[in-house]
């Protein structure tokens, strides 16, 4: 089996999920290539220790990402660092010829994203994708198949979102995602925003204009040192977009919600599409369920399907069993490795989100900031 040697820059929560997925790659019995973790970069020794103890394949542990990128043994990198570092790190990785899986939002703002896109344009041999795992849940893969088959007919409306709730606790200490200098002006759009855009961007749906309302709800948070720190980022954002469907040429409204403060929503990623021939709903509130309505004339009935483990990249887990978050991470990494090896995704929605798709999200978020500031509808440039 072919091996792809990975380096990791930024070794936090999602880095550990990646490493654990690498460790159980045997879970995917039909993959023709496997990732191997050979180098890690993080300044915090308490974070790198877990990797060192568990992954004997790691030959390089460094605090300097440039050292890792200079390592000829590294073929591909996973980068998960605060947003203000994306431009510098992602461009350096691409210039070093390393294939890249990068965390969203791919640049702290539109200018940083454009710089990354320019860098990528001059290195077309490098394979670059953005991390986003929720569309790999079985119900979403099924909805993706339906979009590809144009099963929805004329799209009437799409609603998607990503809702968290732990920030409802005003005593939760501040972290870098709540600070403009690290997370950017986008606030919750930069942090959560790409996730609810993923399916629509992959479908080729193009927002033409946006009306956005953004909210700052908690203006200061404990700084972890006994004092309070200003919390200036947007907590919640709702975007209402006039959207073009290239399959039919029709326009439809797409409402996208990104909320850090949505009471009772622990980790709710949802997607809902209403069409003249079919409708579908999914939410990680119940990741096992897919709601469907197929209209062929006659009675209109919603159907509820238990999805089990109907994954796109074959797994050893039996088809009736429940899919978990770590399983969606494993599927996403299978998608990255598959496309890197084969030069194309297994199927359209079993591919990771592309840099071009991410670039459109930046245009949307930038227009959303302007829409909110001027209380007008803003066309995407």
């Amino acid at each position, binding site marked *: 089996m072919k091996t792809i040697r990975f380096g990791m820059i930024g070794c936090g*929560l999602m880095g*550990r*999920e990646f*490493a*654990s*997925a690498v*460790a*159980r*790659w*045997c*879970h995917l*019995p039909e993959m023709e290539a496997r990732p191997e973790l050979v180098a890690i970069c993080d300044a915090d020794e308490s974070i790198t220790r*877990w990797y060192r*103890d*568990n*992954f004997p394949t790691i030959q390089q542990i460094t605090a300097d990402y440039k050292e890792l990128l200079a390592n000829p043994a590294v073929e591909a990198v996973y980068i998960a660092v605060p947003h203000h570092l994306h431009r510098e790190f992602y461009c350096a990785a691409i210039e070093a010829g390393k294939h890249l899986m990068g965390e969203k939002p791919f640049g702290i703002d539109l200018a940083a994203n454009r710089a990354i896109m320019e860098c990528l344009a001059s290195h077309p041999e490098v394979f670059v994708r953005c991390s986003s795992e929720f569309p790999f849940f079985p119900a979403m893969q099924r909805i993706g198949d339906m979009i590809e088959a144009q099963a929805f007919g004329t799209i009437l409306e799409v609603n998607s979102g990503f809702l*968290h709730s*732990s920030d409802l606790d005003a005593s939760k200490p501040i972290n870098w995602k709540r600070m403009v200098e690290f997370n950017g002006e986008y606030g919750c759009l930069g942090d959560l925003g790409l996730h609810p855009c993923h399916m629509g961007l992959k479908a080729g749906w193009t927002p033409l204009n946006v009306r956005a309302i953004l909210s700052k709800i908690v203006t200061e948070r404990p700084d972890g040192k006994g004092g309070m720190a200003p919390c200036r980022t947007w907590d919640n954002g709702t975007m209402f977009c006039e959207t073009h469907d290239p399959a039919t040429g029709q326009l439809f409204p797409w409402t996208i919600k990104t909320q850090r403060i949505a009471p*009772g*929503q*622990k*980790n*709710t990623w949802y997607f809902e599409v209403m069409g003249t021939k079919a409708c579908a709903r999914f939410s*990680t*509130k*119940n*990741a*096992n*369920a897919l709601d469907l309505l197929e209209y062929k004339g006659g009675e209109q009935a919603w159907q*509820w399907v*238990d*999805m*089990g*483990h109907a994954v796109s990249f074959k797994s*050893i*887990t*039996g088809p*009736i*069993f*429940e*899919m*978990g*978050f*770590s*399983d*969606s991470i494993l599927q996403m990494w299978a998608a990255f490795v598959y496309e890197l090896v084969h030069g194309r995704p297994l199927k359209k929605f079993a591919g990771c989100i592309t840099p071009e798709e991410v670039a459109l999200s930046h245009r949307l978020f930038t227009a959303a900031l302007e829409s909110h500031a001027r209380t007008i509808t803003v066309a995407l440039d």
Partner: protein
Amino acid sequence: MKTIRFGMIGCGQMGREFASATARWCHLTQASARPVLTAICNRSLRPEKIGWFTGNFPSIDLVTEDYRELLASPEVDAVYVAVPHHLHQEIYCAAIRAGKHLLGEKPMGIDLAANEAILDCMGRHPNVLVRGASQYIFYPAVQRILKMIADDAFGRIIELDSGFLHSSDLDPDKPINWKRLVEYNGLYGVMGDLGVHSALVAFRAGWEVLRTTAICSNLVSLRPGAEGWMVPCSTWDNVTMLSRMRDLRADHVFPWVLRLDRIMPGEKNSWYLNIYGTKACARFSLKNPRRLELLFYRGDEQRWESVDMGFETAYPTITGSIFEFGASDAFMQMMAAFIEELAHGQPSRSCASCPTPEEVHGCHCLFNAALRSNESHIEVSSLKKSRPVEELAAR
């Protein structure tokens, strides 16, 4: 970290889950020991059966068709056994006699006699840890409910309603397999296959089953066999039981409705548990593994709460607490429970330990009462009429 060398007897789907969990043992952040797969035994050594194991696990240095050879290996500390039920007594007893700690698939014996023979053998080898494999109690919502039971949070129990529902047997063209054949699965039918997973909770809670009424159904009596023609399918597909229960702490009696169905349309893998009490109520189903419904009654308005459960596991992992918990995670938590108990000599908490043979024995007594009730159409005593384990050992 201490290493526990595992042998595996029976290399099927759950064996692969077991092996994959050992591969990502790093997922557990506070494990005090790690399992390593050193030996495997399967009836067939054809590459399509065992190639995945030998190809992915270089730690395996013994591959055999003979479980006795595996049990004789000094390189094996513990075994995971997942074989058809008619082999449980022979292989489980052999493992215990060989001094191998045993994580054995339910029902730990094809019938009550086989189960008691295993208990008897266990009693003679008290230094061997023997636990049943059942992963559903490790879902975060179920852990929370078990903790509420332990804390006596429900008040007087009004009703227990639990079950385990599958649906793929609705397809009459689904070929027969060993779980649908009496000679391999026993007279219990669906109870032997799904029953322990669901019934376990009542015994874990410490509730006593006094009497049981059951209705058993054999809905599909013929299925396609391996040779292409139809063969008899004589096991029970669905069983519903109504039991008279006693809460030993309070000496209250309450009803328990237990449904074990292979054929319940639309239910892919619905393990569910509903408990109604005078102070609190709780509802959970794998139909929505994230949701826990709770009602706390303090004399004011009666309101159901719906809570999103995340990754609040008994054994801490690297996965963030807000994320979705899946079947492979449950299986891994179960293995962690076995290994922690093995490493420390006792479970880290009673809610989060693997089924004990005594709990599984309670399930056998219940299933036997159900079979007799179905035959006689009367309510049958489910009390464990057999001797306690120590007495069995003294025989």
